[in-house]
C-alpha cells in the first residue's frame, strides 16, 4: 500500500495528517482511507508546517545559517523532524459500491493513500446526465466523468459564479454541447457575446437540435424580430425602472389599446386627461430607446414567440444572439420569451421536458434592486413547472440570500474576492467553510460543484471547450455525408 500520509490527530471534519516525506500533497487533493466499514474519501483543505523542534530553536538555527555561522552544522534525519501537516476532511464513505455520508472518524493513525479508480465506482452515469467535467484531485484531473441528474439539477437552477476570465462561458459551452441532443431538456440561451452559437454549431447534430436567432442572421440563424404586439407591460419588470405613474400609464395603455398599445404610445396618442403629458413624453422617449427597430418591430414576425417556446418545449436548444443589443433590450427579449414559456408551462399539465434559461450577469434581474420579475419568480417557483435558470455571474453577493439558497447547484469557479466566496460558502449545499482557500486558489477551468443532488462537494476539472468538442467529434460515429 502506497501511503502518502498518516492521521495523527484532529477532530471530525478537521483531521490532521502528516505528509510522507517525498510526497507532495495539494490543497483540494483527494485521498482515501481504508476502513473496516468502507472506504472513506477525504480531501485536503489546508497545509501547514510541522516540526519536532521548538520554534525558538528553529529561529536560532536559521539565524546561524543566514549569518554565515552555519558551517559545520547539519540536520540529522531532517525528513523525520520537519514535515508537512495536511488538514483533511471526510467527503463521503464508499460502502459496497454506494456512497453514504461519512459519520465516523477514520481509525487513529491510519494511513492515507491517493484515490484509485476502484474507489469511484459509485459515480455512475445517471439516466439523464448533465456533464460538468472530470473529477479533480488538487490540480490533477482524474479520468472520471462527473455527471449529475440533469432533469433535477436544471429544474432546481444552476449558479455559475466566478471572477471574470475563470471559465464561466467555457463551462456553459461544454454543458450545452453535451446537452444539445438530449431530449430531456430545452434550453434558452441569451448570448450577449455571440459565443454560444459559434461554439454549439460545431456539434454534429446542430442542424437538428440547435435553433439560433440573431438580429443580423447569417449561416443558419433565423432573424430575431419581435412584433410589438407580443409585448406586455409586465415584460418590462426587472428590465428597466419605471416610476409608479409610468407603470400605471403602461397598464392603462395596454388596457385601452390592447395589442396596439406600444404602437399608440410610441405615436404619442393621448390616453385622456388621466395621464399627464410629461409622463407620456417620458414614456415615449424611454420606450423609443429600447424599441429602436432593430429587434422589436411594428409589422410582421408575429409568430416568433410561439416558435421559440415551441422549440424549447420540444427540447431544442435556442440561442439568441444579443451581441448588438443593449443590456435592456437583451433583457426585454429574454423577458418576452421567458414569460411566454412560463405561462405555457403553468397552463400545461406537465413539467417535462425541463426547460432551462441561461442568463449572463444574472444579478441584473435577480438582485434586490431589480424588483419582482419573471426570472425571480422562476428562481422561487420555477421547479414546480419544470423551468429553471442557469445564472452566470461575477457577483453572486448581489443576489439575495434566499434566492441564492434556491439555486440548488453551484458550480463554483475561481474567485479572489473574499466577499463573493463568503456569499457562496454561506449558501452552498455542503459545508464549504473550510474551502475558502481552495476556492481562492482555483485555476481556470477548475471548479467545486456544490449541489443538493450530490453527496459531497465535487471538485471538477472542466475541459477546454475547443478540445472537448473536437475530441467528441472524433469519437462520434462517422457521418454518411463523408462517404
Amino acid at each position, binding site marked *: 500500500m502506497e501511503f502518502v500520509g498518516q492521521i495523527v490527530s484532529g477532530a471530525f471534519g478537521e483531521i490532521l495528517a502528516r505528509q510522507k516525506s517525498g510526497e507532495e500533497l495539494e490543497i483540494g487533493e483527494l485521498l482515501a482511507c481504508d476502513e473496516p466499514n468502507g472506504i472513506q474519501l477525504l480531501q485536503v483543505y489546508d497545509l501547514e508546517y510541522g516540526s*519536532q*523542534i521548538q520554534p525558538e*530553536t528553529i529561529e536560532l*538555527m536559521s539565524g*546561524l*545559517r543566514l549569518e554565515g*555561522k*552555519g558551517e*559545520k*552544522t*547539519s*540536520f*540529522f*534525519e531532517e525528513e523525520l*523532524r520537519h514535515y508537512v501537516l495536511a488538514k483533511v476532511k471526510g467527503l463521503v464513505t464508499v460502502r459496497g459500491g454506494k456512497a453514504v455520508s461519512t459519520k465516523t472518524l477514520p481509525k487513529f493513525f491510519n494511513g492515507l493513500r491517493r484515490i484509485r479508480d476502484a474507489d469511484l465506482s459509485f459515480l455512475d452515469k445517471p439516466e439523464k446526465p448533465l456533464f460538468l467535467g472530470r473529477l479533480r484531485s488538487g490540480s490533477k484531473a482524474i479520468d472520471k466523468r462527473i455527471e449529475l441528474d440533469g432533469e433535477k439539477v436544471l429544474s432546481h437552477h444552476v449558479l455559475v459564479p466566478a471572477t471574470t476570465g475563470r471559465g464561466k462561458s467555457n463551462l456553459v459551452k461544454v454543458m450545452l454541447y453535451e446537452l444539445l441532443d438530449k431530449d430531456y431538456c430545452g434550453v434558452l440561451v441569451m448570448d450577449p457575446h455571440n459565443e454560444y452559437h459559434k461554439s454549439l454549431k460545431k456539434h454534429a447534430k446542430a442542424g437538428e437540435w440547435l435553433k439560433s436567432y440573431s438580429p443580423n442572421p447569417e449561416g443558419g440563424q433565423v432573424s430575431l424580430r419581435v412584433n410589438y404586439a407580443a409585448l406586455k407591460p409586465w415584460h418590462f419588470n426587472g428590465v428597466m425602472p419605471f416610476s409608479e405613474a409610468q407603470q400605471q400609464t403602461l397598464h392603462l395603455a395596454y388596457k385601452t389599446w390592447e395589442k396596439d398599445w406600444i404602437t399608440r404610445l410610441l405615436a404619442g396618442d393621448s390616453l385622456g386627461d388621466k395621464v399627464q403629458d410629461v409622463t407620456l413624453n417620458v414614456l415615449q422617449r424611454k420606450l423609443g430607446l429600447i424599441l429602436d427597430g432593430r429587434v422589436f418591430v411594428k409589422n410582421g414576425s408575429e409568430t416568433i414567440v410561439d416558435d421559440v417556446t415551441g422549440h424549447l418545449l420540444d427540447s431544442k436548444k435556442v440561442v439568441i444572439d444579443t451581441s448588438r443589443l443593449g443590456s435592456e433590450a437583451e433583457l426585454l427579449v429574454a423577458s418576452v420569451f421567458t414569460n411566454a414559456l412560463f405561462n405555457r408551462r403553468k397552463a400545461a399539465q406537465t413539467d417535462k421536458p425541463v426547460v432551462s434559461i441561461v442568463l449572463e450577469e444574472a444579478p441584473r434581474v435577480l438582485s434586490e434592486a431589480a424588483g419582482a420579475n419573471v426570472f425571480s419568480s422562476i428562481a422561487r417557483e420555477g421547479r414546480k413547472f419544470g423551468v429553471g435558470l442557469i445564472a452566470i455571474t461575477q457577483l453572486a453577493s448581489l443576489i439575495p440570500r434566499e434566492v441564492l439558497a434556491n439555486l440548488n447547484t453551484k458550480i463554483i469557479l475561481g474567485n479572489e474576492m473574499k466577499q463573493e466566496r463568503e456569499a457562496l460558502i454561506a449558501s452552498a449545499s455542503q459545508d464549504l467553510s473550510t474551502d475558502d482557500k481552495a476556492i481562492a486558489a482555483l485555476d481556470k477551468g477548475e471548479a467545486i460543484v456544490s449541489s443538493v443532488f450530490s453527496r459531497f462537494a465535487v471538485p471538477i476539472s472542466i475541459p477546454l471547450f475547443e478540445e472537448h468538442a473536437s475530441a467528441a467529434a472524433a469519437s462520434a460515429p462517422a457521418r454518411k455525408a463523408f462517404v
Partner: protein
Amino acid sequence: MAFDFAKLSPKKTALGAPHFSDPRYSPLAFDEARFQSFEAEAGRLTCVDGGNASVINTPNLSVQLVRVYRNEFDGGERKTSEESEFLVITRVEPASGGQMLLKAETMPLNGPKLLQEDLAFDWADATLAQGGFKASPSALGAVARRFAEWKMACRCFNPVRDGTLQTSVTNESIFSRKAYAESKGVFSALAKTSSLYTTTGLPLVSAVARLAGKRAAPWVYGPLCVNSQPDHEADLFVAKLHENATHCFRFEVKRGCDALSVLPALAFQASDLAFLGYPYGLVDADKRARVPFEEARQMQGVMRQEIGEGAWREIELDSCAVDAHDFLDRV
C-alpha cells in the same frame, strides 16, 4: 544596595583545582596541557537512555512504567533502534528477622525482556535511601530502569549513556560489568548536568570552559582525576563538541580506554542544529525513552479497569498517605 550582586560573577572567583569529596578520586591540578583538540568525524555510536514514571504510588505499592531505548547511528544515518517497555510492580513484604523487603516484579509490555529476575532490596538499604529515610517502593522503578539501561547497552557498538558511568545502587555493578564485557568498542557517557566543583566552589565544567578561553572546539580536557573507585570504572573529562556550542559537558570513558576513539563521532553528531554541541543520538534517545505524564495516566486508566473499581478505591485510600502530586517519579 546592601548586597553586592557584582561579587556573584564567577569571573571574580579563582579557578582553584578540581575537587572530589570521595578520597578514591585524586584530583589532578588544572593544566592547559591537558586540552586536546580534535576534528569531528562520522563514526558509529549507540546512544542509550531510559525513562520512568509512576502509575500507582502508595506507601506499600508502586507501579512504574519504564522505557529504555537505544539507537545506533553511523555518521548521520540511523542503523538500528530498539525499545523495551515494562511495568515495575513493587511491594513491601516482611521477611525473616523483623526485616522488611522491597520486592519488585517486572511485566514486559513491548520489546525485549531485559530484566529476567525479580528485584529484592532491604528496606533499609542505604543506597536506596533518600535523605536518611527508608526507601519508598517507588524507588525501585528508577533502579529497574538503571539496570535495564545497562542491559540495553550489552552487545552494542560504542555505547554512549546519558549521564555517567557511576553505579550507585546495590548490585548495579553486576549489570555494568556485564555491559562492559559484552559491548564492543568503547563505553562512554555524556552528562548534561554535573555536580562536580572546584576547590573555590565553581562548577567544575564552567571552570574548565574558562580555562579553555578562546580555544577552538571541539576539544576535550582531562583526565580530571585519578579514579580508583571500584563502582565507577571511568576516566573523567570535560568536552566541548562544537565551536558554536554554548555548553561543555562532563564526559566519561570506560577506565583505560581512549577518549578520542569516540569523541570525533560524538562531535559529528553534535553538529545538529537543534542542540549544537550535544549529540543528536542522545537527543533522540532522550525523547524516545521519556515517559510523559499523560502516558502514565493512560496506563493508570488501563490498570484501574484491570483491578476493578472496588479494589482501586482501596488503593486510592492508601495513596492519600503520599503526596498527591507525586505521580512522576523524581528520582
